[in-house]
């Protein structure tokens, strides 16, 4: 059944490619020829001629029409009341003529213009114009009733990683959410632990230290110690330190390990995680050339962007690719060849550059050279789009065997991509340009970004003191707390609380903690006196205070996990719109994705709480 379907797809593709391919070949050549004559002096010689200087610099060319302007002109209605679908089909065809797979500006325009049609119509049209734009899929998911929601959502989520703007945006937001979730969850767990252990600490201190302070006075002293770092200007980070100082010496071994993990997680949230968030927030404006390369792939280049790229092109093949792409799309094939030569495309093994070169040759009417470049590109990287382009050229030359082989290879590489390209081809003039790999562009942005100032601003809510400003000092301070807390806590558990009647049992108060309780005869436990309070409000408190159920059940790690899950869920919900504005790349999909993540984390919280309560029973 599947093989039959595949054969049918290939045959249909071959038949569809054949006639249109001829049109593609002739029409592209006809459009390109005047430009080549103007630039190089004779037609179709660019395959062998190296351009030593930029041609357009010596000979003024006619003002090019930007790709986005061509798209906009194609989209304008030819008659009053023209249906949206026809306008979109015309724009899609124009994009295909330019080799533009993703016409993102056009898709965004459709999504933003409410008056153009219904939500479903506009989102479908947006997907047709920019299949790699997550915002388009997100709008389609929200507009699609019933079964259409899931596939559109999944496709949009997959595209989040393949779109530069969306991937940078979600990384910045996700790191920010992670920082706040880790910090707030760990802080909550530390504070709950400190409150939990404070009565024990107060009781034991009343034995160990001189003076006649009652236990509640010791509790007040401990509370003062807990919030003192915060009061000294360390903010929430100081509160975490204070809670750690109070809780660590009086905790059991397993609880102590969890407290240390929570402290380390809070420290990691304040420093490396926030630094990463700052880096991605600053990334999008860190390297204008990389942004220009992205713009060339999905839209057009402004004059300033071209100037920047021209300066960088001799050292950067990606800049050359962007300029070549732009030049080809505005009809300046000589310029395009110049930029490709500058990137040494003849010796290159870069499939994107080789595909560019093939497309320029094809636009110039040299289909034989185009086939050579396509085959080299396919050899460098098996890509369905390259095989599709190759099939298009073979079709234009009426080489049915080559066309079928190329289509089979495209089908074997990615059936979904092939199907999409066949759909996008419109009136058949699509020889698709490959975008520069998004992973490489993202890595460039990450390398160029200096997010220290942004990270410092992001850390400000955590505290304004030295713990937040200086990571080494914070690490040293945490180490000091660990050493002192462990030393103080060694064998210091002197009192416990009966898990049944909640009476304190202390060796110095004439009752051995490990034996049976004098009041009820039950065996001992390490419960806090607060468990008595918790018993009275247990149904509510244990379920609503994240981490409390784990503490009561003597499963502190589970409690910490619950606290972190709850904090992450809250952070994901609060920041679902993004720590920075979404540049209309993720669209409605971003908040939707973070809301789903938040719901999942709430489920994790509920699950861990349920497990803790179950062990209590």
């Amino acid at each position: 059944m599947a093989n039959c379907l595949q054969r049918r797809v290939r045959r249909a593709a071959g038949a569809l490619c054949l006639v249109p391919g001829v049109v593609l070949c002739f029409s592209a050549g006809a459009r390109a020829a005047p430009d080549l004559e103007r630039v190089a002096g004779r037609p179709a010689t660019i395959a062998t001629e190296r351009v030593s200087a930029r041609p357009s610099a010596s000979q003024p060319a006619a003002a090019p029409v930007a790709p986005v302007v061509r798209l906009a002109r194609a989209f304008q209605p030819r008659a009053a009341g023209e249906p949206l679908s026809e306008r979109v089909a015309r724009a899609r065809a124009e994009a295909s003529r330019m080799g533009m797979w993703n016409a993102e500006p056009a898709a965004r325009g459709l999504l933003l213009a409410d008056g153009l049609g219904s939500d479903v119509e506009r989102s479908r049209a947006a997907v047709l114009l920019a299949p790699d734009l997550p915002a388009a899929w997100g709008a389609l998911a929200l507009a699609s009733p019933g079964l259409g929601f899931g596939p559109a959502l999944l496709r949009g989520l997959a595209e989040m990683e393949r779109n530069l703007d969306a991937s940078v945006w979600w990384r910045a937001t996700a790191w920010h959410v992670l920082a706040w979730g880790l910090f707030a969850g760990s802080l909550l767990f530390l504070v709950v632990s400190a409150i939990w252990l404070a009565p024990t600490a107060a009781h034991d201190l009343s034995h160990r230290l001189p003076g006649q302070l009652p236990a509640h006075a010791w509790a007040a002293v401990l509370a003062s110690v807990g919030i003192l770092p915060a009061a000294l200007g360390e903010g929430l980070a100081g509160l975490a330190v204070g809670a750690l100082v109070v809780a660590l010496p009086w905790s059991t071994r397993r609880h102590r390990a969890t407290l240390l993990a929570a402290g380390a997680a809070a420290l990691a949230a304040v420093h490396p995680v926030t630094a990463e968030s700052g880096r991605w927030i600053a990334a999008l404006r860190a390297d204008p050339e990389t942004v220009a390369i992205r713009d060339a792939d999905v839209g057009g280049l402004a004059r300033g962007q071209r100037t920047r790229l021209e300066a960088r092109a001799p050292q950067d093949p990606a800049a050359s690719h962007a300029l070549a792409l732009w030049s080809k799309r505005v009809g300046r094939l000589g310029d395009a060849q110049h930029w490709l030569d500058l990137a040494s495309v003849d010796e290159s093994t870069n499939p994107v550059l080789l595909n560019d070169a093939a497309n320029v040759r094809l636009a110039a009417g040299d289909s034989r050279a185009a086939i050579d470049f396509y085959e080299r590109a396919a050899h460098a990287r098996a890509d369905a789009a390259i095989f599709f382009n190759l099939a298009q050229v073979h079709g234009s030359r009426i080489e049915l065997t080559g066309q079928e082989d190329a289509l089979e290879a495209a089908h074997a590489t990615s059936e979904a991509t092939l199907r999409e390209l066949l759909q996008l081809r419109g009136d058949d003039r699509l020889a698709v340009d490959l975008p520069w790999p998004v992973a490489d562009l993202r890595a460039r942005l990450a390398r160029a970004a200096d997010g220290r100032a942004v990270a410092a601003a992001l850390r400000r809510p955590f505290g304004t003191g030295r713990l937040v400003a200086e990571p080494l000092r914070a690490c040293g301070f945490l180490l000091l707390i660990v050493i002192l807390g462990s030393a103080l806590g060694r064998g210091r558990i002197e009192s416990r609380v009966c898990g049944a009647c909640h009476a304190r049992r202390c060796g110095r108060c004439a009752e051995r903690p490990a034996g049976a309780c004098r009041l009820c005869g039950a065996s001992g436990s390490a419960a806090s006196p607060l468990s008595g309070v918790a018993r009275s409000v247990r149904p509510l408190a244990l379920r609503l205070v994240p981490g409390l159920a784990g503490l009561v059940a003597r499963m502190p790690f589970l409690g910490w996990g619950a606290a972190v899950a709850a904090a992450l869920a809250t952070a994901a919900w609060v920041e679902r719109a993004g720590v920075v504005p979404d540049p209309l790349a993720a669209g409605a999909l971003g908040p939707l994705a973070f809301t789903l993540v938040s719901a999942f984390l709430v489920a994790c919280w509920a699950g861990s709480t349920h497990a803790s309560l179950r062990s209590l029973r």
Partner: protein
Amino acid sequence: MSLMLEGTLVDVGLCDLLHLVARERRSGGLRVTVDGVTWRFGLDDGRLTGVACDAGAERPPLEPTLLMLVRHRRGAFRLDPGRVDGPEVERETAAASGIDAEVLASAGEQELVRLADRLRATGGESSRPARAGFPAAGQLEGLEPDARAVFALVNGDRTISELVIRSRLDPLDVLDALDALAAGSLVRLSRAGSRTPLATLAQGSGRAPGTTWRDGIAALLPLTLLLGWLVLPGNVFPTRAGDPFGTGGGGRDHDPFRIRDDALAAARAAHEAERLRAALEGHRFAEGRLPERLAALAQKGYVPVAALTDEHGRPYYYARRGDEFVLLAPER
């Protein structure tokens, strides 16, 4: 002739044992084992002289230990007339905390519980009652003889235990007498500190005797002040993230010429500019031309009105240049 007596507390209760010790004026040692913990009492002529526990190095207090043990039925005892276990049961304790075993035994279990409750209410057995003033004429004559005897012993230094020992009265009678004296403002009952054994026992059941509301206020006042200082805006937490000038959270600052060094706001403005750029391109595609002014984007619903300015309320710069446009974030 002295015989060793051994058995379980189910058969012979602790009160009966103490009766026996008092009646026969025994000396020696009494070992009581409850839940694997052994308590060793010293006996001297029918009096309990001290107690030691094998679970801790320190000697537990006598009365609370008895109060605790008398409730247990699951345990064993061994009365050894000729033997005092261990050096930790010292005869010196007799003067300070020796209690007539007969008194304790006659009180019975319920009486001991009542005694414990009364002691807690009074402030613990180590509380030192003091005279509150000179009695008025005829005031003492209206009191019970026990109360008069106790009043005669009160000097401000003696504890309730010492009053019980010296008066040779039943502890509950002593406490009744003290209540009557306190009601007549003849005696002031000062509460003991929390470190007294009974007080710490009481803490276990959720009470904190020996403290007054003034202690609570004294302890909580600095904490309250600290918390108050903490939550005052600007002392610890920044009033507004990304506002190093402390202009407060009172809305947008509309001073367009103020130079700021706010990296986060600048980054957000850059992203907002990207968003506006995308909206401008979208407008060009949908409408066929770029808008004359940035505000047209908001008027046609492409972006919200708030997106036309940065978070400090400063507008973005926008200008058309033929088919292209210039869009600058305010911080530039």
